């Protein structure tokens, strides 16, 4: 069922395979299942966050607050665990609820007061990161039993292992794909991204869906934050700076159009994998500093955007429709 619409995602997946192969040829020890698993382990949080971002972008909006939300989650968790003495089973639902509510609030502002998503989520980003600093300027290390367990547990598949975070991330991925393609909420999200005006006139529950989309993104940011906390075992205001850019890049490389209405959750997964493989390649290379990752992602972003552009130009010429601008 390889339709024309699926081409960008197929290209992304192909690129990932290509890069992985490239690495395998150049570096010994690259071609191993564990390397692949490490990719997932190191980027599980990015995957979760990027999934939430995908929904927002498909609905025609954007969420710049995700990185700060991750940081806030780590900070709140650390403060509650270490200073408040809360048990893990109370902290996690709490921070997830905060993330969801935060997202819903932004969604409400965006929809009911017609303020651009860019600005509202920008304010959200400031607010979340600011709250981080208000809680504590410095790092708070976590030594709660549950968290350290989660950080150290290895789920074994033969000789290889993954962390529990990976399982969480993959579950979220599966759920997200289901939601996007098999639920009314998911389809309405696509409809709104295609034409909000039409969705309204068609009688779709636009307000409810838009707010839920941002709530979902907030939830994913918080969940990503929880996973990140397992990974870093600390709360710190400077965590995940720039994460929103990585999430957006992953979604775009995965075939999601920033104009909305088009995108596949699986594509975002491929985008995150590419992000991870680039990092791994650089580590294996050894001499290049990590800021090369940025440049390469930038170049890739450029290539994919041009590809998307050619793709949409051709389909526009067919129906003679007029281009939308940002």
């Amino acid at each position, binding site marked *: 069922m390889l339709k024309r619409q699926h081409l960008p995602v197929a290209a992304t997946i192909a690129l990932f395979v290509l890069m992985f192969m490239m690495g395998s040829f150049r570096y010994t020890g690259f071609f191993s299942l564990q390397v692949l698993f490490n990719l997932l382990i190191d980027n599980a949080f990015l995957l979760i966050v990027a999934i939430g971002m995908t929904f927002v972008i498909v609905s025609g909006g954007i969420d710049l607050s995700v990185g700060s939300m991750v940081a806030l989650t780590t900070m709140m968790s650390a403060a509650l665990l270490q200073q408040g003495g809360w048990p893990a089973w109370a902290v996690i639902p709490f921070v997830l609820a905060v993330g969801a509510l935060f997202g819903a609030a932004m969604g409400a502002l965006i929809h009911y007061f017609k303020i651009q998503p860019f600005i509202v989520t920008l304010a959200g980003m400031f607010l979340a990161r600011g709250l981080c600093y208000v809680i504590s300027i410095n790092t708070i290390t976590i030594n709660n039993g549950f968290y350290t367990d989660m950080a150290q547990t290895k789920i074994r598949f033969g000789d290889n292992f993954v962390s529990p975070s990976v399982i969480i991330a993959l579950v979220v991925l599966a759920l997200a794909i289901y939601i996007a393609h098999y639920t*009314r909420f998911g*389809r309405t999200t696509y409809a709104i991204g*295609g034409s909000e005006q039409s969705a309204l006139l068609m009688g779709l*529950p636009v307000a409810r869906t838009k707010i839920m989309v941002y709530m979902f993104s907030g939830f994913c940011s918080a969940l990503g934050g929880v996973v990140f906390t397992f990974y870093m075992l600390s709360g710190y205001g400077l965590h995940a700076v720039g994460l929103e850019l990585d999430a957006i890049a992953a979604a775009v490389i995965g075939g999601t159009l920033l104009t909305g209405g088009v995108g596949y959750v699986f594509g975002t997964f491929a985008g995150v994998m590419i992000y991870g493989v680039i990092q791994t390649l650089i580590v294996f290379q050894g001499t290049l500093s990590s800021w090369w990752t940025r440049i390469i992602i930038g170049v890739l972003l450029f290539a994919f955007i041009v590809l998307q552009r050619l793709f949409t130009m051709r389909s526009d010429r067919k129906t003679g429709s007029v281009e939308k601008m940002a």
Partner: protein
Amino acid sequence: MAQQSVAEPILKLTGIHKRFPGVRALSGVDFRLFPGEVHALMGENGAGKSTLIKVLTGVYSIDDGTVEMEGKRLVVHSPQEAQAAGISTVYQEVNLCPNLSVAENIYIGREPRRLGRIQWKEMNRRAEKLLEERLHLRVDVTLPLSEYPVAIQQLVAIARAIDIQARVLILDEPTSSLDRGEVARLFEVVRKLRGEGMAILFVTHFIDQVYEVSDRITILRGGELIGEYKASELPRLELVSRMIGKELTMLEELPKTAGQMRASDNQAAIVEASGLGRKGAIEPFNLSIGRGEVIGLAGLLGSGRTELARLLYGADRADQGKLHIEGAGKNGVHSPRGAIDAGLAFCPENRKTEGIIEDLTVRENIVVALQATRGWFKTISRKRQNEIADEYIKMLNIHPPNPEQLVKNLSGGNQQKVILGRWLLTQPKLLILDEPTRGIDIGAKAEIQRLVLTLSREEGMSVLYVSSELEEVLRVSDRIAVLRDRVKVEEIGKSEMDEQRIMKAIAGGEGA
């Protein structure tokens, strides 16, 4: 003509009032819609047709008056509620989601589900069945809607309306972007639905179509109800005169003046296209336009009229052929800027997306093209801009006569006049008008047509006039070029110009 077998209207509006800041959109309007009939709602721009529709569909609130459906009071607060009440609308700009598939567009919000999970196969199957049985349309329902032309998209919109068990179907200017074949197919569907008992409210500008398919006509003017008539009992001329509230002498005068032959016809061509063509848009054609000539371009939608006009202007680039414009350099014209410098002007078909700059004022919209020819530094002084604006507002009767008014607040007809003013200001040798009177009320239509004739006769301006309304083309042109399927097939001179002749040329020969 359907018989009215039901005594009670399904929809009854009484004394509707709706106000906007500074505008009284509807004043005490009554309206009745019976099941099993097609009821046309007519009026010039600003008469209140759109407002009435939006009131019915829950987009606007009413200030006063009642709406009753099947005898019971009906109040809807949103399109969702209107839909639930059984009122479905198909808008002029098809309001569906182009990125979703055909099947999804029909079923979204009501997709067949099992335990919360959408059943795609079932949905696609139902969509195919619905389209084929009720609309005689066979398409791949899994493709995105954007892959299909507007005519098909509209039918999909109607399919959605039918499937929601709508009892009232509102068609808001559905035929503006359709060609004759597509209109015929649409009307077939409409008649079928009428036969099944659907109440259909049909809003349109096209008088032919009103008589072709409606049973009853309601006329609005200036937000007030003029009257409700049976289509069979209302002659055309009377319909039009009630719509504009004036005698029709101005329209009747025009054919006489256009028919006069002019003395100085044999002048060198000021624009000459030889073998000009663009792949996928229009086959190579020859066309020569003399000074002061009005050349009409006739043909069905999609025959290449707009494409031809755009090639002449340089809005699109030609693949082959030569274009000679008197006064232009040897290299001809490659961009709108070059075209303007050479003395061309172009009023595009789609004034909203290609014509008006809506957030700017009337003054700015008028001077912009002239300013563009002068480059950056030679600005037109504010004083001079004000003079220009006042002059053209007066000349073209633009209303409201405020040069600082934002163009987006003007009605369609006045917006068109602003664009016309913009181009007249550049004093072009050749004015290209692509559907200049589309979506405009009769009064403004006549004004524009009269202006075109005056310009060509008295100022020697050449005009290329593209229109899908044959009578209009006949009325203003000295010569008509006929296009069919992206090929220029004929040129018809003054002596042969009549509707039959043109239509024959458009339709082509036996089996052509």
